[in-house]
């Protein structure tokens, strides 16, 4: 059964009894929570994700709970636990969902070293994908959210997972965190987008999450055809400029969460990735123009194969 099909009391019971088990991409998450509002938002953000049956082996045992101290009553808080440990300071209770999202990012970034992990958005049409590695503030998430509402499938907004053996891309579709002005930009761009509540005053400013819904990639042999380094520049003309492969390789390596940890394995995987793709730097200010360009890139490839 999908998370979105569970009755509220079913999902509350599952979460309260540490039996809420579901997939985030290749990872099985076992969630324990006593915060019904958080569980409701989770089901709204991930309605199409399958609730897994116990017993099943979970990759991450996490909890999002109210602390048991006096803060339970006075300015209530939420804490994130992984394997019973609390790696972060508590958040205000009403920020439990972003706490879960960032907590899960922490778990993946620090533990999932069977993959080369890129700090990148990845979208695909069929088996052909675009990797968009970028620094925070580059407009990556905004562009990614726009693309998945115009026919592209989401693999990732934060973690581009690369299988080091095959250099294929592994989907990890998660809610896309939009920040500050980007929230209203996507609300205006895609009236059908499911956007969660605005979380004001988080450590990253105002944040709201876009649900991937059913716009998720499911293939197992998805290859990067383009590596595009995006940069939003207000008022700029759109420009797509080729990047030499050696430079693209270095930028990807510098952008990877675990390049140095994996060493030669990462080196070889990223070489395969870059060798098989065209690389560009991309400057944009207009989302419609940007999405059209991505569509033309894809159509050009379709026409040539």
């Amino acid at each position: 059964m999908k998370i979105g099909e569970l009755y509220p009391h079913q999902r509350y019971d599952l979460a309260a009894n540490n039996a809420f088990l579901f997939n985030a991409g290749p990872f099985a998450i076992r969630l324990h929570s006593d915060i019904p509002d958080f569980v409701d938002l989770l089901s709204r953000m991930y309605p199409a994700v399958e609730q897994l049956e116990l017993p099943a082996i979970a990759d991450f045992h996490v909890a999002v709970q109210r602390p048991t101290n006096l803060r339970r009553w006075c300015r209530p808080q939420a804490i994130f636990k992984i394997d019973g440990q609390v790696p972060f300071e508590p958040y205000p209770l009403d920020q439990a969902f972003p706490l879960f999202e960032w907590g899960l990012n922490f778990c993946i970034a620090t533990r999932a070293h069977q993959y080369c992990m890129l700090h990148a958005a990845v979208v695909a049409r069929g088996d052909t994908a675009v990797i968009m590695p970028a620094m925070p503030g580059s407009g990556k998430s905004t562009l990614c959210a726009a693309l998945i509402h115009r026919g592209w499938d989401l693999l990732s907004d934060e973690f581009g997972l690369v299988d080091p053996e095959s250099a294929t891309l592994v989907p990890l579709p998660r809610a896309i965190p939009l920040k500050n002005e980007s929230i209203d930009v996507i609300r205006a761009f895609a009236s059908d987008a499911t956007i969660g509540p605005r979380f004001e005053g988080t450590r990253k400013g105002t944040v709201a999450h876009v649900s991937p819904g059913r716009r998720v990639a499911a293939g197992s042999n998805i290859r990067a055809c383009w590596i595009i380094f995006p940069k939003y520049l207000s008022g700029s003309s759109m420009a797509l400029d080729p990047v030499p492969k050696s430079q693209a390789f270095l930028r990807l390596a510098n952008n990877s969460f675990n390049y140095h940890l994996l060493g030669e394995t990462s080196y070889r995987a990223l070489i395969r990735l870059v060798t098989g793709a065209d690389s560009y730097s991309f400057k944009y200010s207009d989302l419609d123009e940007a999405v059209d360009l991505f569509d033309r890139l894809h159509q050009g490839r379709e026409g040539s194969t």
Partner: protein
Amino acid sequence: MLSASMTLWYIPASDSLVWHDWDSDFTIFDRSTGQTHLINLLPGELLKKISGPSRSEQLAQDLASLCQVGNTPDWHQKILGILAELKAIGLVQEMTA
């Protein structure tokens, strides 16, 4: 200070270098340090010429032939400068002949 003619240049662990040729430059992963280096064509070709302990004069001569330039004192100085840069990143070492 040793003169150029008394110095031999060598790659400390050539088996530990994993090359990739990108046409206009090279990347090298050094297994012994875990470092990745991006190097241009000339330093790359210079490294390839160091199959064993080599004198800079011979390396300058070989590369001058490859690049079809004159093996002048300035060229030799350029090669010595590249060797010093490669030494700084740990890809070559020097020893006394």
